[in-house]
């Protein structure tokens, strides 16, 4: 028995040793001396004076993108001596509330939902941004953006990354081969869809499965069409419950989306019929384009990262995106998008320094250079944005004529925006009629 025991201990030690041994290569710990006075640190002078302090950040950004974040503020850390501890979690939205209620809030949180931001602000948990942060944010972002982090006249933080949602992905190669052209209006889009359907290919592919967030890609469709069929003002009323959720205008937008999403002739290329949209994960929903099994896929700019390895994303490449056309060209080109806001649960000076830095043009350029990132920061230099879709997005966001609106489901109370709206769209795809779904969502709006 004693023998068996030691052998077993040996096995455990062996596994451990293996895990440690193979990874224990590389150099030792290189101690970085503070180089606060070196020339490249001149830009960080105004953030200095907090040497040795620590700032914790909590966000939903993880893995490679978290590495890029860490890389983007490395110089800031070296020059100011502030240590930034970032933690990303897939459970961010739910766990942030637990941590805050439990008295264990992070110093900063990147909140992607203005609705959630408002909840913490209303509860008095968030600290209004300091004067420096506010000045920096007002200099670099348009009021369109800043209003989403302003609650009852108090400003709570600047945006960080952004994305543009009003895109339709397609294959320039395929379009050239078949002689199709990029549509400029909704009617052209439908005409093109019919043409493609005539060749025997299902023109559209879509997927709304996304784990515990299943349904959100469909809400983006509705939001985009709300913006196009009504007006930005009506859109704002809709997201703030100024008009009921089952208003005829909303029903109109949903039915319009249904012209494509619930049309068996149009969907779901590469996956099956209409109902397959519900179970197709949004990550793989567009990939049939590269296999020539569908032609069009409506998804945000960040979908650029989802293509199979080796796919060339460019205007003359394997895939690219065009602007989701206007229904009524006379109404201009509204843009739907999203992003996260840098909000603070603490107001220590080093926390404010980090919050201000993240709103700066220096930071935006530092992060953009690393790649796969879009921001509405006006100081962001297009030359620093490597990826062509990101470039297009930055152009759209920086254009002063752009009428920008934030993703509506992120503005609504979470019970609707992250709850019944998502679930309602899933039911809708799964066969429920528009009126029933909208009445259900309306009745769930928190009083």
């Amino acid at each position: 028995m004693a023998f068996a025991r030691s052998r077993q201990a040996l096995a455990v030690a062996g596994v451990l040793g293996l895990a440690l041994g193979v990874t224990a290569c590389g150099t030792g710990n290189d101690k970085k001396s503070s180089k606060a006075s070196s020339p490249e640190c001149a830009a960080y002078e105004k953030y200095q004076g907090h040497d040795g302090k620590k700032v914790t950040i909590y966000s939903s950004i993880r893995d490679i993108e978290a590495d890029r974040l860490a890389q983007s503020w490395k110089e800031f850390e070296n020059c100011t001596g502030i240590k930034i501890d970032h933690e990303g979690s897939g459970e961010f939205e739910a766990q942030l509330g637990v941590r805050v209620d439990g008295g264990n809030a992070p110093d900063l949180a990147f909140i992607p939902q203005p609705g959630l931001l408002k909840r913490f602000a209303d509860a008095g948990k968030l600290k209004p941004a300091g004067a420096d942060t506010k000045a920096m944010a007002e200099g670099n972002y348009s009021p369109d953006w800043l209003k989403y982090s302003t609650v009852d006249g108090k400003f709570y933080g600047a945006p960080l990354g952004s994305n543009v949602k009003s895109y339709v992905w397609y294959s320039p190669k395929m379009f050239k081969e078949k002689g199709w052209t990029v549509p400029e209006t909704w009617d052209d889009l439908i005409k093109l869809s019919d043409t493609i359907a005539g060749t025997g290919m299902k023109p559209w592919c879509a997927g709304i499965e996304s784990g515990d967030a299943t349904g959100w890609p469909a809400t983006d469709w509705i939001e985009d069409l709300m913006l196009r069929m009504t007006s930005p003002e009506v859109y704002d009323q809709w997201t703030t419950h100024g008009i009921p959720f089952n208003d005829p205008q909303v029903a109109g937008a949903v039915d319009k989306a249904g012209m494509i999403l619930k049309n068996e002739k149009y969907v779901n290329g590469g996956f099956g019929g209409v109902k397959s949209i519900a179970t197709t994960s949004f990550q793989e929903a567009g990939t049939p384009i590269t296999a020539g099994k569908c032609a069009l896929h409506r998804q945000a700019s960040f979908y650029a990262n989802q293509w199979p390895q080796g796919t060339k994303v460019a205007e003359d490449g394997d895939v690219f995106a065009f602007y989701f056309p206007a229904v009524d060209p006379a109404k201009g080109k509204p843009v739907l998008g999203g992003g996260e806001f840098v909000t603070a649960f603490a107001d220590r000076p080093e926390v404010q320094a980090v919050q201000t830095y993240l709103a700066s043009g220096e930071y935006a350029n530092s992060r953009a250079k690393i790649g796969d990132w879009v921001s509405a920061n006006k100081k962001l230099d297009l030359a620093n944005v490597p990826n062509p879709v990101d470039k297009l997005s930055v152009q759209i966001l920086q254009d002063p004529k752009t009428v920008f609106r934030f993703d509506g489901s992120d503005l609504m109370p979470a019970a609707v925006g992250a709850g019944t709206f998502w679930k309602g769209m899933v039911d809708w795809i799964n066969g429920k009629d528009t009126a029933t779904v909208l009445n259900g969502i309306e009745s769930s709006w928190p009083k």
Partner: protein
Amino acid sequence: MEFDFAEEQPKFLMLMYGLIAFVAVVGGLLLLLDVVPAWFARRRDARLLAAVTSGAPLLRRRKPREGLFALFFLLPTLLFLVVGLVVPAIRTTLLSFMDKDSTNWVGLRNYGWLFSEPSIVRVLTNTLIWVLLVPLVATAFGLIYAVLVDRARLEALAKSLIFLPMAISFVGASIIWKFVYAYRGEDQEQIGLLNQIVVSLGGAPKQWLLDSPLNTFLLIVIMVWIQAGFAMVVLSAAIKAIPADIVEAARLDGVTPWQMFWQITMPSIRPALIVVVVTISIATLKVFDIVRTATNGNYETSVIANEMYNQAFRYGQPGQGSALAVFLFILVIPIVIYQIRNLRQQREG
């Protein structure tokens, strides 16, 4: 990126502290309980000696000391339970009578919502289906398998395979079942095993998780798949504990395996069987990860724990979430009553 052993040192140090604390607490408690009564015993002996000579009553002081012993045996458990579960349970109950900001009392409004919202009523019925089916099927399977494997060669291997699902984290399990229930269009190659079987038999692929109530049963299959390992391990241990001489005597009497099962095995493992059924029932009432990762409660598959988590943490409705939790407390009452009856019988018997 280098691996730095120095960085790991605090962890081992902390682990060591933890183990030292463990030895100190448990060992200290036992030592204390050993030494103190011994001292009392010596005093009692002395008093006994005196009492024998004087003829005074003896047994009066025995009872309170039993209580004192019990207190020390129970102390750590009670402390942890009060902090970790009793206080939260009380808090949850209070919250269920409050609004979403947990500031104003709203009476029974959250409970009214519970029973008036059709989607929530559906959640409650689903939970009922789960708690009726899972314990029954998982225990039956675990029992049959435990009996079977008891007489089989390669027992360790077979048991390990059944046990395997328990050892897989939910993250892994969610992908495992994705590869079973996944759907692709008819013209596509299937990546889900179930549809592949259907297709190779000449049928059309189906979206398994979409159609209610079939989807609930398919999710229940996952739970049974996991819990059967638990049932099997505990029941197998109980079967092993049946004294060998009883089994041998029965064999010599020439009983059939069927008789053996009903007359020897079943009565002997009854306590373990109850443990398994009760435990799986409670685990099923609280089932959360399976529904969350497979459908997130869409397509009318939601259950109480999943809805509770969504309401309390994702939708910012702690009042409604708490009401669901309290409903869970109520659902367990039948099991508690059964347990009380059992205990009574045991004490009498």
